């Protein structure tokens, strides 16, 4: 039986003599409309990206020139040029790649440490009972609602006290513990069968060993999903790096991009090219790890 499971449209089987009857036409029309809608939506979703990318391949004067009337030239540069990217590489005091590397370093470190620390905590919340465990979990989760801007100044003062301003630590350490991570990973651990750990314990593993050697390796989808979320969060960070670590040696991408927009001169070519470059690593990461991410996100929402 052909069925479109979730809208629940159940169509009867094809008649033996497959000529163009109303049913087939109807099915085709339905399919075609569906496809058309998906296509239009896809265009809408990709539009800003496409415009941004084509902007990065244009000269500054051409960027905003071809909007009216709408034509193919709105999206395809009349004069292709890599000048914007070249300009990025020739920036002073550091070429743009320096900021990319800073962002990569910070993001990877945050992600790695985050995965370790939060999966440990999530395991406790999922498997080890102690009095007050669930209340503690709720308290941790509650911190998620606090907007960062609220904490920015006190946190900045803490960084000052620790002499961590303009250092990588200031960009990394405060973001290792993550209630969201604990939540997602706990959900996942709750879904794993206890038999795994019990088997490991019987084989002689300590509680920690069971966690580290048996549970974690089986949690790859959730780990990758959360890892990607954390990576993106760190990659995207703007206000915090701006406040606490803006000087060029430790500057990250988002702050660098903001510096192209100054009082006198908005360097659109640099902004567009940098925006494309800033999107690239993230897009590639998500593209390669798509499967795990989808699986991880999808299972976490179910509980």
């Amino acid at each position: 039986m052909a069925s479109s499971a979730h809208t629940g449209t159940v169509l009867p089987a094809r008649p033996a003599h497959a000529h163009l009857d109303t049913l087939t036409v109807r099915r085709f029309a339905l399919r075609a409309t569906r496809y058309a809608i998906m296509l239009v939506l896809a265009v809408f979703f990709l539009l800003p990206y496409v415009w941004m990318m084509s902007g990065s391949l244009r000269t500054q004067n051409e960027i905003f020139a071809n909007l009216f009337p709408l034509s193919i030239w709105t999206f395809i540069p009349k004069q292709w040029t890599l000048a914007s990217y070249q300009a990025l590489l020739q920036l002073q005091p550091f070429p743009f790649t320096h900021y990319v590397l800073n962002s990569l370093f910070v993001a990877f470190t945050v992600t790695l440490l985050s995965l370790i620390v939060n999966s440990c905590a999530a395991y406790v919340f999922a498997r080890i009972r102690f009095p007050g465990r669930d209340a503690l979990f709720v308290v941790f989760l509650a911190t998620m609602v606090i907007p960062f801007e609220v904490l920015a100044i006190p946190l900045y003062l803490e960084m000052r006290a620790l002499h961590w301003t303009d250092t990588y630590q200031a960009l990394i350490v405060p973001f290792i513990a993550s209630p969201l991570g604990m939540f997602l990973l706990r959900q996942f651990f709750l879904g794993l069968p206890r038999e795994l750990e019990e088997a490991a314990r019987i084989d002689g593993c300590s509680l920690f060993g069971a966690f580290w050697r048996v549970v974690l390796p089986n949690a790859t989808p959730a780990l990758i999903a959360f890892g990607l979320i954390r990576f993106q969060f760190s990659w995207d960070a703007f206000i915090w790096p701006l406040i606490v670590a803006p000087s060029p040696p430790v500057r990250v991408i988002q702050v660098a991009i903001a510096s192209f927009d100054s009082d006198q001169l908005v360097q659109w070519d640099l902004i567009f090219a940098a925006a494309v470059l800033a999107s690239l690593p993230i897009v590639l990461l998500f593209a390669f790890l798509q499967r795990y991410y989808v699986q991880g996100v999808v299972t976490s929402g179910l509980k």
Partner: protein
Amino acid sequence: MVRQNAAAAVLRKLSPTGQPEAYWVAFWLLLPAAAGLIIFTFVPIVYAFWISLHDYQLLSGQLTWTGAANYVRLLSDPSVTKALVVSLLYTVISVVAQVVLGLGLALLVSERVRGLGFFRAAYFLPVVASLVVMATIWKFLYAESGLFNAILQTVGLPSQPFLKSADQALLSIAALGVWKFVGFNMLVLLGGLQAIPADLYESAGLDGAGAIQRFAYITLPLLKRVLLFVVVMTSIESFKLFTPVYVMTTGGPQDSTDAIVFQIFRTGFRYYELGYAAAMSFLLLAVVVILMWFQFRALRSDVEY
């Protein structure tokens, strides 16, 4: 059954102390995360609350005790009420749009079609973009002579003021928010959809239920848990609306996009009144907690299948 007993016996033997071993492990496993949260979240919260009981001039660092004065001022400040309303409105619009569109997209990509991977990637792509950058780009897409108006005119519709109109500005920002985050919700809802066993639909079909009935009586109820997740996550994020306002409208036109977090930021960082800003943020916290509580009650699911 036998195996279970044997296992239990072995477990008891391996850890003669039983529970305390677990407590010990729990302590160490939990410590780094707890320490991180305490030092970098709880302490700043406490400090922020302490600041809210003072008049704290940011630049000079001058601290004057004012007790509950900031909170009293809050309750009678019309711009704060307005800002809360703006954030609330935005949240409602955002949640409705994201749930509806997210569910729609999830339904669309739950089928096998040509190029499914492409579509799913296209809808998800905005999620990985940087919000700061995209807000800047969208600001120009919305301009009077920007891309969106160019498209409108090509199809014969009149130009819209978008960010310049008090009626359209918040909706325009909401559109950006939806574009950016709906891909994530699509995935979550997709998971929910795929977890519904197909035979439920088939038996309902055999019983004569139409497509809409199947959707209303099978799909929606079984999605309740996932929907709750989507609604709660989206609400929290939406209520904290800041970056697009900062980049695109700075609160205007006519205060129609003056979201509460933006106001907090502006009061503390631009007008240097950190004590008042801190008090505002605790008010925000209280409102969000209340919001979440209502949502949990409303969407509580007792459906098992």
